[in-house]
Structures are given as C-alpha cells and as structure tokens.
C-alpha cells in the first residue's frame, strides 16, 4: 500500500490471473487426485456460496462477526493511539511499558482465549477482550515509535512558533507520525479479523468463525470453502476501508514526499 506499483492498471492481466487460479482449482478438483467430497469443484463452491447468501443464519453470523470485529478494532485504535499519545514525550513510562508490551504482543491472540474464558465467561466481553488485545499492540507500537521519532527540525520549528507541549503533540508530532500510525492500523485490522475468527472457532456459538468450524468438522466442504471465500473478501474490504481512510487523512503526506 505504500509505494507499490499500481496493480489495478492492468485489469485484463488480473482477470487472467484469477481465471488461471480458478481453472487450476477446477482441474485439481476433477483430476481424481482428491475426492470432490473433500476438495469441491468451483461450481460446487459457487452453489454453496449462493445458498449462503439467501440464508438468514449466514447473515446473522456475518452481523455478529462484523459487530465484534469493528467494536474491537475501534476500541483498540482509540486505546492504542491514546496510550501512545499519553507517553509520546515521556521516555520513562515508555521504557517501563516496553517489556510488558513485548510479552503481550508476542502472545498468539487465540492462545489467550482459555484465560479470557476464565476471566470473562463466554459472552461478548470475552470476544471484545481477545480482539482488542490482538489489535491494540500494533497500533500502540507503531504510533509510539513514530511519535517519538519526530524530526528535531519540526519540533524546533514548532517551539519557535510558541507551541506548548500539547500543541506540539497535536500539531507537529501527530501529523508527522500519521503514515506510520496508519501502518499500525492496517496490521491491527488484519489481526482483529484473525482474532475474531479464531475466538469464534474456539469459543463461539455464532459468527463466521463458528460457521466455518462447523462446516469443516461436519465435512460440508463446499460451504466451508464458500465461508473461507467470504472471510477473505471481508479481509479485502476492511483493508480497502483502511487504505481509503489513509488516503483521505494523510494523502498530503505522500504528495509532499512526491509519491502521489
């Protein structure tokens, strides 16, 4: 998303790539190497997808997952950014937090599901805690690092303009750190989706992860692949929203750097 070549410039090639992918899938499914019961053909998956789309249960699962994901991500962004801003020019608290943050962020979010079930039960707070924890640290770490790394010239200029601490933070550090903050948010969005699906697979009674788990373990493979497709599309959609927000809010950054 940073400086990647414009990949949408050649829709014909993209279509060809996707066509090859689905052809390869179909060929593998029909090759007899695996049974179509385990590895369904493309039309079988498409039919399962069609059946899902007219199924109220599927949309309820979608709504449940989306609500968890968005609430968790929003909370994580607010908390991560808030925490990073709070310690932006306080080196000591930042260093005090560092080892704890390291430990919390290397823990696989799904591995926290058992302890979260203990502490919070099986209700919405448990899911929220898992998703917030997964998405919080990428936001915090990227924001804290970027806020601490403002160019000295920019800070001195701000001071020369008579800015106080809060104004420096708000008018100088935050805008300068914005691109990296969005990088953190992009990673956080991917982690939030992962955590949502994982928590629902491990402890859910509804949601896309739960539906996927059920489809897989009842060997309803066409529905399983259709659900994976839907979850993948959800990921694409979320990443696109983040990319759009980034362009709207910090597009001027790229323009300044001559990358626009």
């Amino acid at each position, binding site marked *: 998303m940073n400086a990647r070549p414009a990949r949408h410039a050649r829709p014909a*090639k993209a279509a060809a*790539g996707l066509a090859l992918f689905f052809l390869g899938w179909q060929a593998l499914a029909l090759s007899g190497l695996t049974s179509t019961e385990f590895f369904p053909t493309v039309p079988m998956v498409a039919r399962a997808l069609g059946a899902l789309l007219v199924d109220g249960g599927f949309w309820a699962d979608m709504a449940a997952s989306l609500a968890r994901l968005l609430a968790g991500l929003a909370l994580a962004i607010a908390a991560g950014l808030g925490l990073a801003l709070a310690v932006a020019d306080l080196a000591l608290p930042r260093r*005090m937090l560092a*080892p704890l943050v390291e430990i919390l962020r290397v*823990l*696989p979010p799904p591995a926290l599901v058992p302890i979260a079930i203990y502490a919070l039960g099986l209700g919405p707070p448990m899911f929220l805690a898992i998703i917030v924890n997964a998405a919080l640290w990428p936001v915090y770490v990227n924001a804290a690092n970027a806020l601490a790394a403002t160019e000295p010239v920019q800070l001195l200029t701000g001071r020369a303009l008579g800015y106080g601490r809060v104004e420096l933070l708000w008018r100088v550090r935050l805008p300068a750190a914005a691109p990296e903050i969005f990088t953190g948010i992009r990673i956080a969005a991917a*982690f939030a*989706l992962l955590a949502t699906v994982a928590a629902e697979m491990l402890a859910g009674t509804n949601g896309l992860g739960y539906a996927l788990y059920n*489809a897989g373990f009842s060997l309803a493979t066409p529905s399983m692949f259709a659900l994976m497709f839907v979850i993948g599309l959800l990921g694409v959609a979320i990443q696109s929203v983040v990319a759009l927000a980034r362009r709207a809010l910090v597009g001027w950054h790229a323009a300044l750097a001559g990358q626009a």
Partner: protein
Amino acid sequence: MKATRINLPGLLFLAALAASWQAAALAVGSRGFPGFLDVARALIHDAPTIAGALAVTLGRAFAGFAIALALALPAGVLFGRVRALRELAEPVIELIRPLPAIAVIPVGMIFFGIGSAAKIAVVVYGAAFPILINAMEAVSGAHPMLETVARSFGLSRLAIMTEIDLPAALPQIVAGIRISLALSVLLAVVSEMILSSDGLGTYLVRAQQSFELSRVLAALLVIALAALAINAAMLAVEHRLLAWHDARQAGAAGHAADGGQTGA
C-alpha cells in the same frame, strides 16, 4: 529496533506487576485466582510435560516454516523479477492473503486428519505469505541500475536472480522471515488448540478444561518466552547477515517490516 541493553525501568515495572499480582492473589486467596508464585510452581511441577509439548510445537513450527521458506523465497524472487508472472500472481495473492491462516485449519483437518501433517500444512500456508510478498516487493522495487549493470556484465536471468536480486532484497526478505517465524509459532499453537492431540496448544486447552488456571498461565508464559527468544535470535541473525547492506546502514530496513504482516 533498540539496542539490546538492559531496560531497567521496564524490568522493575514487570517485577512490580508480578509482585502486586502475587499480593492480590494472596489477598483473594482463591484457587480461581492463582498468584505469580502458583504459576511458577505449576511451571516447575509440570516442567517435563511442558518441555516435551514445547518441543513438539516448535518442531511443527520450524518444519512448517522451513517448507514455507523453501517454497516462497524462490517464488517471491521469481515473481519479483518476471513481470508477466507477477501480474498474474498478484491478484490471486491479493485475494487469498486477507484470509486469516486460522481459517485454513479445517481444510488441513480434512486433508491430513489431526496429526502433525495437518498442523504443519497450516503453518506452511500462513508462513509463506510474508516471505513471498516481501521478496516480491523488494525485488520488483529494486533500483533499475542493479539490473542494467548485471546485464552489462552478461549475467543470465537466473544469475541475476541469485546474485543480484536476492542479496539486494535481503533486508526486506529478512523482515518477512521474522514475521513469518512469529506466525509459525502462533499457527502451530492455534492448530494444536483446535485439532487437539499434543503440543503446547493442546496442553493449554486441556489445562483450561480441567480448570487449572495456574497451568494455563504457565503455558502462556512459556509460549511468550519461546516467541521472545526466537525473535531475539532472529534479530541477532539479521544483524550479522545484513551488517554489510547499505539499506541497513542508512537505517531504511525498518520501513520494510510491515510488508507481509497483514497476511496473518
């Protein structure tokens, strides 16, 4: 990346947290709220079991990671170098990548059962993307001068890939590898949690099901320490491997680190 000097305020803060946790647990005095010392005791008591489970989990993580590296690195360099292939592969990667690797666990189960093969397959799937994408981006984004010079030396396409592209793209590739290693451990643990047979993930789930909170926390502690140790080892390797690289010397390598992480 910080230098590896000891962060005293941070360690003191951790120790203070552990102490207040212990004090709170003593004050509550319930089995449902074990203190830090209870967790340490569980860790020591279960040490042989946990060590065995850790070995199983890390074995799967490394096996999956090694296969992913062997597949994704050459593919990434190739796609990065050959534009026609990249243009075909990119939309497919963009379609598949946002799917969390955890969602692939049922597929692994259907094809491979609940044994090691299924878990390793899930790790391979998840660990391949950061390496593939970082290698592809770094090679395709390399300075055109590199290729021009290589051509004028009469290097073949294959030689350009192995002798020019690979070293030039190394900082970003190594960043991808670090993300990929962390993901490998994550996926090994989670696939063991869902396809319970053995390993740390299964230990974790069993401890939860038998309401032994101190063992749950002991397992989490071991997972965190293992992940931290792997990350530290990787950073040390990175430091040695890339000391010569100009991008490293200019301090630009950190920028590449986000490349593949969205593939989680």
